């Protein structure tokens, strides 16, 4: 397969490209889903092909072919060059890629128990079992899913890089939905999207779905009769770790993508409120806020050995003690912005162009426990587990909903609250963070469904997060 990538690169060069890179990929995935105690779907897919990028002048072309033959790879290389040549009709400014020493290497993700070695009937039994328990505890709809991905890819570039990677990812999640009088309530575990990592099946065993099935169904039923989250213009808000992962993903991760900042996503995903001229001095949040993008975190869903431009994984400081200091970048965007290549470019399969994606973007831990935050809060609300998320095209104004809330009075967690929502403006929100969970509360969440790009791509990202407290937040926005 390495030869296929090389053949594609050589064909692109022969057709006039001044730079080319290619990925030959062999990947497979599996989804097993159960619903209400019964298997709902078993789906396995396989994808094999080659994707190649060619650069002519400052213009890119990309072509992909679902074929692992040398002739198809060469044709894809030639086609990529032809597309790049067409791009020169509407060319941008001169471009030199940010330098990255070409690597010849191999990387294999950590995997103690191969997810493909786990018998399918064991997976089915797990999912049918937990959905039946949720049904027995009153769920109108009980759903559970396991997902497995395995990717082998061979990268070659005209600069001499030759990289092989073998990446296995998996995870699971479940939810209980109950229908009440005119509305529904839902509880999920471990989070709305489940929990995923660049790990083996040991991750699924660790999250222990069976131990939590009855609880979430019971909580969903209790929410039906819980009072509404009050509508308040300003209150103290404590967010649980899972919701913090979503908050980081949406309001920090996407905002610091350099392609968005440069306007490359202006017509679709949007831009960013951040201005490169303020990099290194803009106050993004409170001094408690230190965020890194670190693709080297073992087992996290946004981890890899090399990105899809051949840049070795490495940690990048994004926000340091509240000051914005870094971006997520690739070799072309980094060159334009005058920063080092960030190693944050990946593609969703052989047939998609590599683009700037989050790696593992998250908070370094603080000093408090969740219980200390509650005890320190006279009057506030605790919310956890994402239910809805909406944010503007500059990643500035957000409104997020959670599955569950609790009233906090006099430093104690009180009654349940249903339909909790909060809204805010990113730098004001992060600036109001005055307590942050410690290492014991800190956890890396995996997001397997980050959408971006045209044609659409689904990215896998990781988010280290911990509970945190925010002051003076608007909550309880309703229609």
């Amino acid at each position, binding site marked *: 397969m390495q030869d296929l990538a090389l053949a594609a690169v050589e064909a692109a060069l022969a057709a006039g490209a001044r730079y080319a890179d290619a990925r030959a990929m062999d990947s497979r995935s599996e*989804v097993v889903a159960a619903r209400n105690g*019964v*298997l709902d*779907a*078993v*789906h*396995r*897919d*396989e*994808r*094999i092909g080659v994707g190649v990028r060619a650069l002519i002048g400052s*213009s*890119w*072309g*990309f*072509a992909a072919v*679902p*074929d*692992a033959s040398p002739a*198809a790879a060469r044709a894809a290389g030639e086609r990529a060059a032809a*597309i790049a*040549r*067409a*791009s020169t*009709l*509407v*060319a*941008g400014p001169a471009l030199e890629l940010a330098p990255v020493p070409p690597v010849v290497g191999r990387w294999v993700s950590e995997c103690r128990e191969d997810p493909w070695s786990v018998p*399918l*009937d064991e997976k*089915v039994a797990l999912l049918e079992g937990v959905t039946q328990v949720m049904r027995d505890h009153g769920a*109108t709809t009980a759903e559970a899913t396991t997902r497995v991905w395995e990717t082998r890819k061979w990268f070659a570039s005209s600069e001499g890089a030759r990289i092989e990677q073998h990446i296995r990812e998996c995870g699971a999640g479940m939810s209980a*939905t109950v*229908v009440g009088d*005119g*509305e*529904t309530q839902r509880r999920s575990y471990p989070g709305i999207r489940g929990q995923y990592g660049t790990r083996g099946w040991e991750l699924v065993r660790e999250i222990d779905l069976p131990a939590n099935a009855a609880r979430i169904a019971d909580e969903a039923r209790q929410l039906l009769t819980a009072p509404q989250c009050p509508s308040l213009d300003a209150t103290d808000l404590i967010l649980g770790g899972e919701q913090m992962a979503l908050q980081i993903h949406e309001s920090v991760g996407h905002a610091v993508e350099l392609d968005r900042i440069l*306007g*490359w996503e*202006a*017509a679709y995903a*949007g831009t960013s409120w951040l201005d490169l001229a303020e990099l290194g001095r803009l106050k993004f949040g409170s001094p408690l806020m230190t965020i890194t993008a670190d693709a080297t975190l073992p087992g996290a869903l946004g981890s890899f050995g090399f990105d899809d431009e051949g840049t070795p994984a490495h940690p990048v400081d994004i926000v340091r003690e509240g000051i914005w200091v870094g971006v997520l970048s690739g070799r072309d965007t980094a060159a334009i912005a005058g920063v080092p290549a960030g190693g944050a470019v990946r593609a969703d399969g052989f047939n998609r*162009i590599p683009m700037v994606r989050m790696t593992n973007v998250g908070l370094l831990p603080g000093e408090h426990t969740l219980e200390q935050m509650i005890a320190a809060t006279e009057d506030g609300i605790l919310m956890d587990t994402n239910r*809805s*998320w*909406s944010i*503007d095209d*500059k990643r*500035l*104004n957000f*409104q997020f*909903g959670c599955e569950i809330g609790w009233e906090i009075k006099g430093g104690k967690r009180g009654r349940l609250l249903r*339909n909790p*929502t909060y*809204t805010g*403006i990113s730098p*004001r929100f992060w600036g109001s963070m005055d307590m942050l969970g410690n290492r014991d509360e800190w956890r890396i969440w995996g997001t397997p469904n980050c959408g971006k790009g*045209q*044609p659409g791509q689904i990215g896998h990202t990781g988010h280290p997060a911990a509970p945190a407290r925010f002051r003076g937040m608007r909550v309880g926005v309703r*229609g």
Partner: protein
Amino acid sequence: MSAGIAARVLELVRTRSAAAEAEVVVRTGTSALTRFANSFIHQNVAEEIDHVALRVALDGHVAATSLDGAPDDGALARLVAGAFDAAAVSPVDPAWPGLAAPAAVPAVDHWDDATAAASPDDRARGVAAFVAAAGGLVTAGALSTVALHTAFANTAGQAAAGRMTLASLDAIARTATSDGVARSSSVAFADIDTRAAGERAAGKARSAADPTDLEPGRYEVVIEPSCVANMLGFLLSYGFGGRAVEEERSFVRIGEPQLDPSLTIREDVTHPLMAGVAFDAEGTPRQPFDIVRGGVPRAILHDRRTAAKAGTASTGNALLGANPWGVVPASLVLVPGATALDDLVRGMARGILVTDFWYTRVLDPRTLVVTGLTRNGAWLVEEGRVVRPVRNLRFTQSYVDALAPGNVRAIGSDQSLLADEDAGSFLVPSLHLGSWNFTGGARG
């Protein structure tokens, strides 16, 4: 070619088991997209598509596999073996509805040879025309062409084949304080007038420049077609989906006047302006039917599974693969009215003209309360006249309430195709709605 691959897969299935039930969907073709930003092409891609999806049922044990790769004998054998292996260890699916019986599909051919042959140079020239027509404003967007052949076959004897082309432009022109958008989709690339689109986007951007804040609250709105498609997408998926109804998550009550009597919503792949093929992933013909007639829900969208549970027939809305949504609209038409867009605006006493909704998310699936923001231009209208552009606003609004009886003031005579080869197509007009709940400004 697609039909031949489907037949070959069924042969392999029969070789392994004469009793197996199996269905195959094969998609082949080309998808290309030219993307530009800061007024230059920055991403320009093309892919060859070879997709084979197989679902088998062995005495009620069901599993599905798919292949994106060269459909050679070895790959197809692996595909079939994988499905059999997975089915063998799956428990019996008590809700397996069986295969679609042989039935003719509607005669549609949403295809254009020139679009299928569109080159990167064609798309680049289209982009150049858009950029030039924007008159110096910064531009960004995407111009795409797709040509797909789809074939279906199952062991019950149903076989169908179709083809589709689709060309789409979705692009903006930008001032320092505003964006203006232009969209155009058609089966034929030649219908996409990128120069006119550039002028339109630039005009909208200039008229939206230097927006000012508007106090949140309830306003009349005129919403343009992309907003209407957004509303109908949620309304149909969450309300009219067979699974949502079965699980009592839907607001829909068939036969009751739940929506404004001016609203008639249809599935109609045969509409001359529509895109797509005339059968679904289970081989069920997509016969046209009314979903809502005169504000009254008349039909629920079904695949074979939800239809069997409801004791009815599939409506041809099955999706490929393991999807959590059950069914989605495929070729949705909101029957247009007689009022031109300008006259919709003239009909507002005090309201907001909205170009696009953005990042809409459902807060409650039963009441269909949705939060989102405006994008690409919003204007305050007073006494029928556009007064000034306003900054983007956040809304939190029940889509069901917004379309309830008495709330639709007028339906536009315009019709825009908003199409995606995977996510379905919407042919929709603009709407004048009586009340929309804006809950905040995008700046806080």
